């Protein structure tokens, strides 16, 4: 039997304290940051940089925070709960930038001619009634999550190009839009390919066009951070973007340009599957993950003119203040601009 008196206990505590300090020097150099993510394939670069240790190599100890939608993530950046995140430019993001809370610092997902991008969908009911191409959109209803979302932007741009007037139905959640589209309560919608293709496979929904035909080089998602990080934490932000870009390169090589062959793609699918569709079996998830492959901008380059187009559209729709300047939203000093 071991009897621990007061002196022994103190010695033990001291030893434990010394041991814990000895064990940590490697970690103590890395900064702890939180990165927001959605469980979408478009966030793969973040996952790759975490799993392959690119963030760790850059001296960043990343903790992933998962969200269900883009707007709460933008609010979390504004409140300082999350340091960096990737999401679509939305009215909420612009408003928060206007309040001096956040900055767009780089680009991520973008439409590119020749690569399968976001699809325009029609419900079976509307398709049978003649909505077989976006040209027939006039007088139809178009599903969106909320006013000022990327869906709202895409829908209105397609409608404007076709000279059609459509009614937008806000349904808050992607799931609700899918339900409404399948049951024919709304006529049309646009969404990333990994959701569009399985829906079209069900026969209740039809693909009637590509977003890239209407919005070439559309900057779908951007990398953003708090205004404070963008202004005062330059080296940390550069480190983050550097590590993130390595993830982007790996993703593009394996999934978009397919230079690594089938083995490289399978390895990448395994990695992404840990985060996306983790509740589905590997073979089912793999199809969706491969379907969802879209170009992520190399070096997190930012298509400023596309972002400006989007900003101008928000202003013209009176969704954000008229006097917001591009500089308020974007800090273009970090990455190459296109």
């Amino acid at each position, binding site marked *: 039997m071991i009897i621990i008196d007061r002196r022994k206990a103190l010695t033990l505590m001291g030893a434990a304290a010394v041991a814990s300090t000895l064990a940590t020097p490697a970690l103590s150099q890395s900064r702890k940051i939180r990165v927001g993510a959605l469980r979408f394939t478009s966030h793969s670069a973040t996952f790759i940089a975490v799993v392959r240790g690119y963030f760790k190599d850059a001296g960043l100890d990343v903790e992933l925070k998962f969200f269900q939608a883009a707007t709460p993530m933008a609010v979390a950046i504004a409140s300082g709960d999350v340091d960096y995140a990737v999401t679509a430019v939305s*009215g909420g993001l612009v408003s928060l930038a206007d309040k001096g809370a956040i900055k767009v610092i780089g680009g991520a997902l973008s439409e590119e001619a020749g690569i399968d991008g976001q699809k325009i969908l029609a419900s079976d009911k509307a398709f049978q009634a003649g909505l077989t191409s976006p040209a027939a959109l006039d007088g139809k209803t178009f599903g969106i999550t909320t006013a000022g979302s990327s869906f709202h932007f895409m829908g209105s741009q397609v409608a404007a190009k076709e000279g059609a007037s459509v009614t937008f139905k806000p349904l808050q959640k992607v799931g609700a839009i899918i339900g409404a589209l399948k049951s024919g309560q709304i006529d049309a919608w646009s969404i990333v390919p990994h959701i569009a293709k399985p829906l079209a496979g069900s026969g209740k929904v039809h693909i009637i066009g590509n977003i890239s035909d209407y919005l070439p080089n559309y900057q779908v998602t951007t990398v953003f951070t708090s205004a404070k990080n963008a202004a005062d934490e330059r080296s940390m932000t550069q480190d983050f973007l550097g590590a993130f870009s390595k993830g982007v390169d790996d993703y593009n090589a394996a999934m978009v340009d397919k230079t690594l062959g089938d083995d490289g793609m399978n390895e990448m699918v395994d990695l992404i599957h840990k985060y996306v569709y983790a509740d589905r079996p590997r073979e089912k998830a793999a199809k969706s993950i491969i379907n969802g492959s879209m170009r992520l901008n190399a070096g997190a380059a930012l298509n400023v003119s596309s972002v400006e187009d989007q900003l101008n559209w928000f202003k013209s729709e009176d969704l954000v203040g008229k006097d917001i300047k591009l500089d308020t939203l974007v800090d273009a000093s970090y990455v190459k601009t296109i």
Partner: protein
Amino acid sequence: MSEKSSKPRSVEFRGGGFAPVSHRWVGLVVFIVLIVLAEVGTQTGFISALTMPKPSDVLETFHQLYVSGLLWKHLVPSITRLLVGATLGITVGIWVGVMIGLFSYVRAGLVPLVAAIFPIPKIALLPLFVIWFGIDEASKYALIAFGTFTPTVVATYGAVDNVDRTLIRMGQSFGLSWTSIVRKIVLPGAMAGILSGLRISMAIAIILLVAAEMLGAEYGIGAYILEAGSLYDLERLFAGVVILSVMGVLVSAAISAVERKLLGWRT
């Protein structure tokens, strides 16, 4: 016996109090003080623009809303949804509640059912309602009706249960028929409880209005608030919330007026 207690003791008046007295201006002062504090805080920068909008900006947004005519465009559909939905739910609710109160078999059959559907968050059923009633007005009416129904039932049968039994016995000894007792004693006696239940049901109806307008509503106060929330436009958000609050106060005042009219016999 001590000498002290033998002396006559003066007893001060202990009555009074515990009777609500009307001080209408106090409520107004509380509102004004809070708003002035918020205005001063936001003007001086003590409260950041991210935390709270300036009350003066909210007022300006509200003014814009009124001038542009959008106020009525949002208010009319919302008030219609509120009135149709709440009328449906409350009418059926009072009827079912009275039946439960009067008939033991109905009580045995329906009280567990009401208890089972009361705690269901009606918002969770919204996608289902869209399939059942379509994406247009019917699903919104149904959601509000369903939400007001259960609290009305519970308040109504509780009120019927609490009607003074001695009055009913008295009616019976005077030879009143069953329908006369229900009409002249039970219903007037339960009215106070039913009306105070209505205050809760109507507040729930206003809460559900925002939920009902989550799906497919272009215009409406709830849709306006949700849009402002997703755009992180705090001025519009607060303008919308103030409209809901005013609706709540007006509904409460209307119920008070009905109470004064229907319950005049109490005084």
